[in-house]
């Protein structure tokens, strides 16, 4: 796996046990003896992450970049694939190099762009082969159920407030696909997964903390998703489509660097607590991060006021997702909230201890709850 992902996943986790998996081994036999039934899948625009939990409480997350680099079928392409260990899918006369190798290859060749089977949180409608490519990746990352009709929860975004987009068909496609793999599959809101993983609490004077209550925000590549949770129930949920990919595109436009280069700099160098303003890409990223956070706060206030959402106590905001992983992200978000009139008190903004895995782990917790109802 490339150094790019290693950097993303880097030193964020509090207690992390690193392991590398051989590309072509079969994990099913190990899974059958070690894991609790119930699997969570974060079907993201940028990454697919699958979580299972061992009986000792350890979450095991398998992840793969949800991106591909197309190569037309030719003798040169066949030769390249034969001499390398690139993983590929061949669909309709085109080789698609999958995962991090796609990003490496496009940076090495210096022309073209990676393609994404997902866009703005749902199947990419402008890529003809999107469903087929996505399913190859999902199938290879998820594996087989460990019990018959094993409960599986997959993350879905809420409908966005800034675009006329309905995610029901996307949800059906995924449900159908997981069912074909032998799972009892159900969708779960992406932001609510963060509540199940991070357990935000509401504080009231003289009362015990109310669990699974607060604002949860998943900042992904295609969308940021937000939910107001109360005792595990979702009271309000919505999303906005301009998130990490939007940042990359805007920065690419104003600096002239390719999207792939911008992604590399964002993931390897950017520190929002200490931006190198001599680096044009970092400077532009900093500006667009502020723009995105300002927009996020604006929509939060607007939606909660429109829906007359009220909470008795003081609540916690928990943030996760790949786009939140730039150091200093939560500090900037807290700054953006200052001076804004919110319909309830916020006592702190907390970053998930495992921001890249919170959605998959939360979905896994929910799937385990589904299984526990059966037993």
């Amino acid at each position, binding site marked *: 796996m490339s150094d790019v*992902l290693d950097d993303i996943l880097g030193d964020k986790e509090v*207690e992390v*046990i690193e392991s590398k998996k051989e590309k072509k081994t079969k994990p099913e036999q190990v899974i059958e003896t070690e894991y609790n039934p119930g699997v969570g899948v974060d079907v993201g625009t940028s990454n697919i992450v699958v979580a299972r939990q061992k009986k000792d409480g350890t*979450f095991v997350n398998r992840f793969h970049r949800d991106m591909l680099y197309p190569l037309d079928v030719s003798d040169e392409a066949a030769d390249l694939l034969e001499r390398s260990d690139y*993983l590929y899918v061949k669909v*309709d006369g085109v080789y698609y190099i999958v995962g991090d190798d796609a990003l490496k290859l496009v940076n090495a060749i210096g022309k073209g762009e990676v393609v994404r089977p997902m866009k703005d949180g749902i*199947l990419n409608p402008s890529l*003809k082969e999107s*469903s087929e490519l996505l399913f190859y990746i999902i199938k290879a990352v998820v594996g087989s159920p460990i019990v018959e009709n094993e409960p599986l929860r997959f993350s879905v975004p809420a409908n966005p407030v800034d675009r006329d987009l309905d995610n029901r068909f996307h949800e059906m496609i995924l449900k159908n696909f997981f069912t074909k793999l032998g799972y009892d599959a159900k969708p779960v809101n992406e932001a609510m997964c963060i509540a199940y993983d991070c357990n935000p609490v509401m504080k009231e004077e003289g009362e015990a903390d109310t669990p699974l209550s607060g604002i949860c925000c998943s900042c992904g590549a295609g969308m940021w998703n937000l939910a107001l949770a109360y005792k595990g129930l979702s009271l309000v949920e919505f999303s906005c489509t301009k998130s990490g990919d939007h940042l990359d595109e805007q920065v690419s436009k104003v600096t002239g660097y390719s999207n792939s280069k911008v992604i590399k700099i964002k993931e390897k160098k950017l520190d929002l607590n200490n931006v190198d303003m001599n680096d044009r890409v970092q400077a532009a990223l900093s500006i667009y991060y502020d723009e995105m956070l300002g927009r996020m706060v604006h929509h939060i206030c607007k939606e909660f006021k429109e829906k007359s959402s009220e909470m008795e106590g003081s609540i916690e905001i928990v943030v996760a997702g790949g786009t939140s992983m730039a150091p200093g992200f939560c500090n900037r978000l807290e700054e953006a909230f200052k001076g804004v009139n919110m319909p309830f008190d916020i006592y702190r903004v907390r970053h998930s201890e495992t921001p890249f895995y919170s959605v998959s782990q939360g979905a896994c*917790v929910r799937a385990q709850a589904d299984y526990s109802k059966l037993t």
Partner: protein
Amino acid sequence: MPVFSNGKKEPEPGRPIVRHEVIKETHTEQQQIDVTALAKAVAEALGKMPGRGIVNGEEYEDDFSNAKSLDKLADSMTVQRGNSEANFDDLGGVKETKKDVKEVNKTIDLLRGLDN
């Protein structure tokens, strides 16, 4: 009971009996369907198409929010074409994170009470 050319239920004497058989038409057509374009069209149509929908020859009373009709379409999209191939069976790096089992179990207990 058939009706004969003389308009009666008995044949006219001396005329041959001609029986009309109902021939069931069978028509199989293989088409290349651009499923993504279909999905896009459906996604755009969602919420805007009241009335009836026809999927695989079956008619549904509802619009495309009808779970049955959406499920049929989804099913048609998850068939992998025969000429596709991949050089891998499984994928992905692995990262383990440790959580307190008691805390996770508390959350599971709370979630057991939720409907869906």
